[in-house]
């Protein structure tokens, strides 16, 4: 029973990671991330007011302590965040590249009097 719960947790963590990364350009993907962030904040508030809820939730899915459950969720959020900003950085670099290439080509074609397409 616990093993099944663990498998489900790991699988859903990977799925969340995948969707978190692949939907980074769509409105849908970005909206989901904001909702997730909001839910995380609400969950944190609930956990502060009712300290036992995280423990109970953890036991329900076969995790020892509520603190561990939070740690896992935080780790997942962190990995998603790091990879997301890495990908965003790559996208920005790509755009910068195109711009700089355009500048380089305009300059060079002017110097050698070539016709730009």
């Amino acid at each position: 029973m616990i093993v099944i719960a663990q498998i489900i947790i790991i699988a859903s963590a990977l799925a969340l990671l995948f969707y978190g990364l692949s939907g980074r350009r769509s409105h849908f993907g970005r909206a989901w991330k904001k909702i997730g962030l909001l839910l995380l904040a609400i969950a944190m508030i609930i956990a502060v007011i009712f300290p036992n809820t995280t423990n109970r939730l953890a036991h329900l899915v076969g995790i020892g302590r509520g603190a561990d459950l939070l740690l896992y969720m935080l780790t997942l959020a962190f990995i998603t965040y790091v990879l997301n900003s890495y990908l965003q950085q790559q996208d920005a670099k790509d755009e910068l590249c195109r711009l700089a290439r355009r500048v380089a080509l305009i300059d060079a074609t002017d110097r050698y009097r070539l016709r730009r397409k």
Partner: protein
Amino acid sequence: MRKFKEGKLNPAVAIIIPVYNEGSVIGDVVRSVLQEFQHVICVNDGSSDNSSEEITQAGAYLVEHPINMGQGAALQTGIEFARLIPGVKYFVTFDADGQHRTKDVHVMLQEISTGEYDIVLGSRFLGETTGLTKAKYLLLKLAIKFSNVTSGLKLTDTHNGLRVFNRHVAETMQITLPDMAHASEILELIADKKYRYKEVPVTIKYTEYSRAKGQSIVNAINIGFDMLLRKIVK
């Protein structure tokens, strides 16, 4: 089959050389290539040394990146510039450090001028290679395995800077990976766009200089990571 006579200046060929801080060697490399080919395009990728003066003095076309963007980006810029030179039909990518021989370019041009292939790739493992260290050899073999698996091609050398391709490839290939990962990306593009390809043995001369300039072994991890991440999330 049309013959390319050695030493004849061929106006249909553009040699594209990405340059980054190669001031000490680029002048000689350009001068020797210019003896055999008319159109030599150097893309200076934001060098901080005297590369651009050396290139202009040697008499090549100079395209200047305003910032450093990596070898893949420089190649793409060079290809786009070469497309604008009237009469250019064949595009050659050539390394700036003098490790390639123009003799091999002529052989590759003969292959592509038959019209049977879209792109002809140089392979140092079909040919003769001098001065390669053991660690580098092992790394290259690993990289070849990796690239063949990810691209689905069957090649003996996947990270060779010497390539010859026709206008169709020059107009449809879009290199987006700016860094050294472009070698793997080009292979993916070959598989993706179904270019007809062939490998030709070439001789690479590894000098003390080219060894020092070459990729570090650790960078293979960076390339592998980027390629995999791109595969997982498009």
